[in-house]
């Protein structure tokens, strides 16, 4: 029997980049085929070609052995190919049924929506695959895990046989990931095939039947998850030896640097985002804040850095009250901030790298004499930092926007680390970065800790928090529900806490 999907020699060029270089890929019916690769390796381009969003310059796509031209998403849907996008393609104010039938509406009298009939079909699909979805619920009222299931229903509604899932676990808790793998298994059992795109090695080994690794737009190998190891896969992905383990020196903690007491912060819509939380970070330790996205992390960090006013509580930096200080005062007291959205809050994308490197010191000597900027010093400093932080750029005059994510993050790290600091607040410091850059950022963070800096690490990547932290605080619905010692905390225990389930053994310890 012909494979359900075969890609032959797919090539796609963008100006200056060969995004896909003669890629061959074969997916058999009823298998979970993992497509592994770093960000920028060409996975997403390949899938967008398969889904008709891009057109390949060369190569052909065979569905069930027949050459199929896929020029638009409609063609892809017709060929039985569906995609669960990394950022869900759902209209929040529509119901499940409306979202599912959009584009392929059930109608009567030539154009009037037949919601009841569509809802019935959604219900049938939900029952068949055990998805537990209410067809009449509104998307905006649903948790992320269920929204993802609606995306899957959208594909099944269109009778897709090949499901492309683009980084489906990025937004889920560990328990939701387990649920998702169960659903994927049910889909396979019913004869569907899944292409599972990810850069998380553990998940691949756990779920896939076959693994294809892509690097620099080329297929660099296929392996069987039964025999492969994490280190092998990582080396294949990066193309050189990488160490997945972070070596941490024994911590020698000093005095309390950051002390947070009963802090309460509202979100922009007036809801309580951070609910009377307490913690402290000592010199020379990393306190990791774990939690599913949207549990108050953003507001906590924004409040500590002076970007969002606290409505109650106190924040002390080395004993000094900074609760109502402005960002510049907090920066000048020795706080470094790696913001969660580097493009929005971390850089001025249109400005050259040299200017971005002095964004928080430009008004001080020697960069300025009070009125005029000294461009010569700024450029010299920029060149020095570009070299010492290994920022890959043609020159310091290049705008920050034209660098890769990893190099953009290095600009921020260089700016924040090149002045004396005693507190580092790092929010999602490695989001969207490739394995090489992640390794670099992690080492830099730990180097700061070893220098005696207090580090507050906020991350939704549980592995990252566990690797880097000395203590781990779990944030759930704006409250810290537990603070654990990183040496003894298990992944499962943290996963349950992130879902708000507190066991007998880990009551709040402050």
């Amino acid at each position: 029997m012909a494979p359900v999907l075969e890609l032959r020699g797919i090539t796609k060029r963008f100006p200056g980049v060969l995004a896909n270089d003669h890629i061959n890929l074969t997916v058999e019916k009823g298998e979970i085929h993992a497509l592994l690769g770093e960000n920028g390796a060409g996975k997403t381009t390949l899938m967008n070609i398969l889904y008709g969003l891009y057109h390949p310059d060369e190569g052909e796509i065979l569905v069930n052995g027949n050459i199929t031209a896929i020029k638009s998403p409609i063609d892809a849907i017709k060929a039985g190919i569906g995609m669960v996008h990394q950022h869900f393609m759902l209209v929040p104010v529509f119901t499940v049924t409306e979202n599912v039938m959009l584009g392929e509406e059930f109608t009567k009298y030539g154009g009037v929506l037949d919601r009841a009939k569509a809802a019935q079909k959604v219900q049938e699909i939900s029952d068949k695959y055990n998805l537990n979805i209410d067809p009449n619920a509104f998307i905006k009222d649903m948790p992320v895990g269920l929204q993802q299931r609606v995306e899957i229903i959208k594909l099944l509604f269109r009778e897709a046989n090949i499901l492309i899932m683009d980084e489906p676990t990025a937004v889920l808790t560990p328990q939701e990931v387990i649920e998702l793998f169960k659903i994927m298994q049910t889909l396979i059992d019913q004869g569907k095939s899944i292409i599972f795109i990810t850069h998380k090695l553990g998940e691949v080994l756990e779920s896939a039947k076959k693994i294809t690794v892509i690097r620099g737009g080329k297929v660099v190998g296929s392996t069987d998850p039964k025999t492969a190891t994490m280190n092998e896969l990582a080396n294949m992905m990066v193309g050189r030896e990488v160490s997945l383990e972070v070596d941490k020196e024994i911590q020698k903690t000093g005095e309390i640097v950051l002390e947070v007491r009963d802090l309460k912060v509202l979100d922009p819509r007036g809801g309580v985002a951070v609910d009377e939380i307490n913690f402290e970070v000592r010199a020379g330790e990393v306190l990791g804040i774990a939690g599913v996205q949207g549990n108050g992390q953003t507001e906590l960090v924004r409040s500590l850095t002076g970007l969002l006013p606290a409505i109650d509580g106190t924040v002390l930096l080395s004993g000094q009250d900074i609760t109502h200080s402005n960002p510049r005062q907090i920066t000048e007291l020795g706080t470094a901030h790696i913001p969660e959205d580097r493009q929005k809050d971390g850089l001025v994308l249109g400005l050259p790298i040299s200017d971005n490197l002095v964004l928080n010191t430009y008004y001080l000597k020697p960069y300025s004499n009070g009125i005029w900027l000294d461009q010569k010093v700024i450029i010299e400093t920029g060149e020095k930092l570009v070299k010492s932080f290994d920022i890959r750029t043609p020159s310091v005059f290049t705008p920050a926007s034209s660098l890769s994510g990893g190099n953009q993050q290095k600009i921020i790290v260089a700016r924040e680390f090149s002045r004396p600091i005693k507190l580092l607040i790092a929010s999602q410091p490695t989001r969207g970065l490739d394995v090489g850059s992640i390794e670099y950022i992690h080492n830099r963070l730990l180097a700061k800790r070893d220098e005696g800096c207090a580090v507050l690490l906020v991350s939704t990547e549980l592995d990252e928090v566990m690797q880097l932290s000395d203590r781990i605080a779990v944030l759930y619905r704006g409250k810290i529900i537990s603070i654990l010692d990183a040496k003894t905390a298990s992944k499962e225990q943290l996963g349950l806490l992130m879902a708000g389930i507190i066991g007998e053994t880990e009551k709040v310890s402050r």
Partner: protein
Amino acid sequence: MTISIDTTHAATSKGMRARERRRRLIMGGIFLGAALFIWFVFVANITPGAVTRFLMNPGGASTETADWVFSSGFALNAIAGVLALLGVFQVVRGFGKLTNGILAAVAILFLFGFLTWATSGGQTNLAGLLRVMVVRAVPLTLGALSGILCERSGVVNIGIEGMMLTGAFVSTVFASLSDNLWIGMLSGIIAGGVMGLIHAVLSIKYKINQIISGTVINIFATGITSYLSSKFLQKTAYQFLNEPGMFPQVEIPILSKIPFIGPILFHHNIYVYAMIILVFFLTFMLFKTRWGLRVRAVGEHPKAADTLGINVFKTRYMAVILGGMMAGFAGTYFTLGSSGRFDEVMTAGRGFIGLAAMIFGNYNPIGSMGAGLLFGFFDSLSVKASLLQVPLPSEFLGMVPYLATIIVLAGVVGKGHIPAADGEPYEKE
């Protein structure tokens, strides 16, 4: 292992509860404030025993209804009492989903109280007041419908004013030349559609800032129609271009014989009937049909629609052109439905007020008609105010709708739902 996980959900619903509570209290406060205002300002300022006399026939009606006479003090106390009860209930329990409806009822009761007080010891033609309200609401509501069509698809349209003006001008010329009102109306609608097409090309294809595109349309339309009007239409030699005539009043059989309501609602020219029909037709189209689902999807999350094979550009073009045609139709009201000639800048900002009605009505046709009627009421009242025994300049009454709009926009009454992708050009990858 089965664990129900609802983290983000709970976090948002907590914020929502806090907001809903605040909104409930603010609304209750508004209701109670209205009650207190009636007690302390209206009741305190009437002569004891005075009566209010409302005339129930607009001028020239074919039905006869007796005047409505009642004791001012008693009525005001009764209204204030009802408002106070509603306010207390709102503060303690809350009306939940009915809140907006109750708010509308409170507003109507309060306005009735105001009229009762202002008329106390004299008389007001209530039927005439309401009839004018309906007429004044027409261009505002049609303008709002134009805005709804565009903005539900994700294109901000502040060019409604200019589109209306164009429709008004073109309809005058063509109706005069052809000596046919219907041809005039059709040409006005087409002219509005062309303006809509221009806005669509600028904002969808060239991705120009939509506010600027709309402003350009307003300035262009004002300039060209004023120039052509002063050069030709206002000159005696070209008077034949500015004599379009007007649509006659049509009495709806049977319905127009209903006492009081008949003459207010069912004795107008076709524009009033068209407004009512279009409001319900557009509601049906937007919320019950495939077309409407797609328009709204494109306005909320164009990329989602695109990945499902819906042509975002085509859908937006269609919606914006239809919106332009609606504005053009609204424009023909000024010439063919109201004054029977074209004058420079005769729309006088009604397009912008239509936009306010759209926002007030929460991007919803029926809500927008409600807002249009409210604005129309104050418009009508400010004309009549000089006849009332009110120690208030009529200009102040004219300001009330706009103050109300500012309050609505500030979110006191609860933030409405703006289409999520409103004003954002769609970039295909």
